[in-house]
């Protein structure tokens, strides 16, 4: 009896395993920050390359860099934010691009090419971008008489007194430091030690009022109503507003850009030096740069895309949305790379900022 049962058990597992190996199309592995490729684009790509697209997610560019630095291989394409491109190139982890193999680069808006972090687009081509700004609970702001058109709202105790425990900031040193530097009227990419020290002081002063460092589920807090103002990505807020509408929620979420300027995360396609299939990598990037793909991405996810034709195809409520397509790109900044010394210094400060407990926060029940 026992033997019979074991046999059956083993047999059933073997069947499961065999059926698992049967989808044998080659895999196209993309290392990407979030759900950043539209479904119709994936379907088109998979049928044209006879491959199976596998998206591997990272929470933050730091995590991606740590894994790549540590020798992760197997990815065909990485979608990396501005400064991460420089770091990957310096580590020797990515391949110089043969731009001749990317004819669809012609569709990309020239304003987004040739950036400081990759002069001449030697390694990267821009795919999409995501502005970072403050999103808020409209009714609460009205009630408190606060207009979040300035970073002061999340850094100045004058405002924070009223918002204590209802603010979230990203769980990312780069974003929080950049916002603090913008608030101080400094260059958000400053590596001046004095500037960084000032930024640290500003963050230390403000962080007791913040509820959480959160770059993953903050928009759910906005939706629930316990978070009133949050450092946000445009795509998350686009989705949150749609969700609120769909569930007939009484909570009204709005967003605006800040007058000191805002960061935007310009995401680029790069090819790892260790790519298992170079042709597949190029095929994927070419496909993603198509006007149709870029249109689908912006239309379905609310991402901003560097493709003028695609923007014209969009409905006005996306194309004319100031926090998706900012009217004045001069006040939008990309992240540049830090020298290793500066980065280690900021990381050390960040560890302490993030790990220290502030007893003031009102959600602390113990």
């Amino acid at each position, binding site marked *: 009896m026992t033997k019979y049962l074991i046999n059956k058990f083993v047999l059933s597992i073997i069947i499961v395993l065999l059926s698992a190996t049967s989808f044998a199309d080659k895999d196209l592995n993309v290392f990407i920050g979030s759900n950043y490729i539209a479904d119709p684009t994936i379907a088109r790509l998979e049928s044209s390359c006879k491959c199976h697209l596998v998206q591997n997610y990272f929470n*933050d560019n*730091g*995590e991606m*860099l*740590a894994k790549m*630095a*540590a020798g992760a291989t197997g990815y065909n394409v990485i979608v990396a934010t501005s400064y991460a491109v420089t*770091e990957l190139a*310096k*580590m020797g982890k990515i391949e110089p691009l043969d731009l001749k193999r990317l004819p669809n680069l012609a569709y990309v808006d020239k304003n987004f090419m040739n950036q400081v972090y990759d002069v001449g687009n030697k390694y990267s081509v821009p795919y999409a971008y995501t502005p970072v700004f403050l999103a808020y609970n409209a009714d609460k702001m009205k009630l408190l008489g606060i207009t979040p058109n300035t970073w002061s709202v999340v850094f100045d105790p004058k405002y924070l007194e009223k918002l204590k425990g209802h603010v979230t900031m990203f769980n990312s*040193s780069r974003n929080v430091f950049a916002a603090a530097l913008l608030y101080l009227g400094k260059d958000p990419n400053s590596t001046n030690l004095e500037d960084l020290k000032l930024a640290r002081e500003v963050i230390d002063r403000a962080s007791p009022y*913040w*509820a*959480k*460092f959160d770059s993953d589920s903050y928009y759910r807090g906005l939706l*629930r*109503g*316990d978070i009133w103002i949050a450092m946000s990505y445009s795509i998350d807020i686009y989705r949150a507003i749609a969700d609120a509408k769909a569930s007939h929620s009484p909570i009204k979420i709005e967003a605006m850009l800040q007058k000191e300027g805002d960061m935007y995360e310009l995401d680029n396609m790069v090819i790892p030096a260790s790519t298992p299939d170079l042709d597949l990598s190029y095929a994927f990037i070419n496909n993603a740069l198509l006007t149709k793909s870029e249109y689908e991405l912006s239309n379905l996810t609310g991402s901003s895309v560097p493709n003028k034709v695609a923007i014209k195809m969009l409905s006005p409520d996306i194309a004319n949305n100031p926090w998706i397509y900012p009217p004045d790109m001069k006040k939008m900044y990309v992240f540049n790379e830090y020298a*290793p010394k500066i980065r*280690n210094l900021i*990381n*050390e400060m*960040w*560890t*302490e900022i*993030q*790990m*220290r*407990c*502030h*007893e003031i*926060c*009102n*959600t*602390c*029940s*113990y």
Partner: protein
Amino acid sequence: MLRLNEKRALSFIPSLYLVCLFLIPTLIMIFIAFREPGDYGGVAPLITHINNSTQLNLTLDSFKFASTSSFIWQLFLRSMAFSIITTIFCLVLGYPLAMMIAKSGKKYRDILLLMVIIPFWSSFLVRVYAWMIILGPDSGVNYLINKIMGVLGFSSVNLLYSSFAVVICLIYINLPFMVLPLYANLQKHDDTLIEASRDLGATRLQSFLKVTLPLSLPGVLAGSALVFIPSIGMFVVPELVGNNCSLMIGNLIKQQFLQTENWPLGSVTSIIMTLAVLGISLFVGVFASRLKGLKYANK
């Protein structure tokens, strides 16, 4: 001669495997604690050549940083406090449960035991998620408690994203680890001992305190260790249901390896955590053996 060969044949491969995939990795981690962090994550080269002079890059900087940073001590003490509270509550909840199973008839015993095993075998993430629903701001429980708080004149509280939620989840996911060894111990007890103590005039409470409890001490210790050790290194629970004030030492370790890329500091913190676990286990072990010795000495 044949015997020796058999001994080798049996033990060689398992030993080799565990040396390669447990001992060596642990030694590597200890070694990394003394290195310097690299420019792009990882560690700096062990040996550098500058102007014909060779330099060996080994340092105690990470140990110094860890021991002088107040926030690391804060995290560490909080992790200890959470784990100790968790262990105590698991004991309080688990002891009656184990006793009930051990004392129930043969028919029900297996079913009851299976009922403890099922939550224990389903993913702990699922179990944390169950509490995320119950404690969530939209749930009836939270609503009810806030109603009561409102009537009593307190401001409303958020049950989820608090230290309370972290501890509840730690207790919940670890409770079966306490029940199983306790049951294994209690079930072996000889009922005649209790009867004897009752015949000699002990009250039920006395016979429990003087007979059952001391006899179950090995089970209590095994269960406590099985609860305490996984609790202290937990990083997922504070991440999912905690706030800034409920992060634990595991969160720091994870952050150092996956976000801020400071491997040496991460290694140092892991070593401190492991030493603390070892220290506590030793202390409790010695304490327990003393206690037993005393009991017998008194008799």
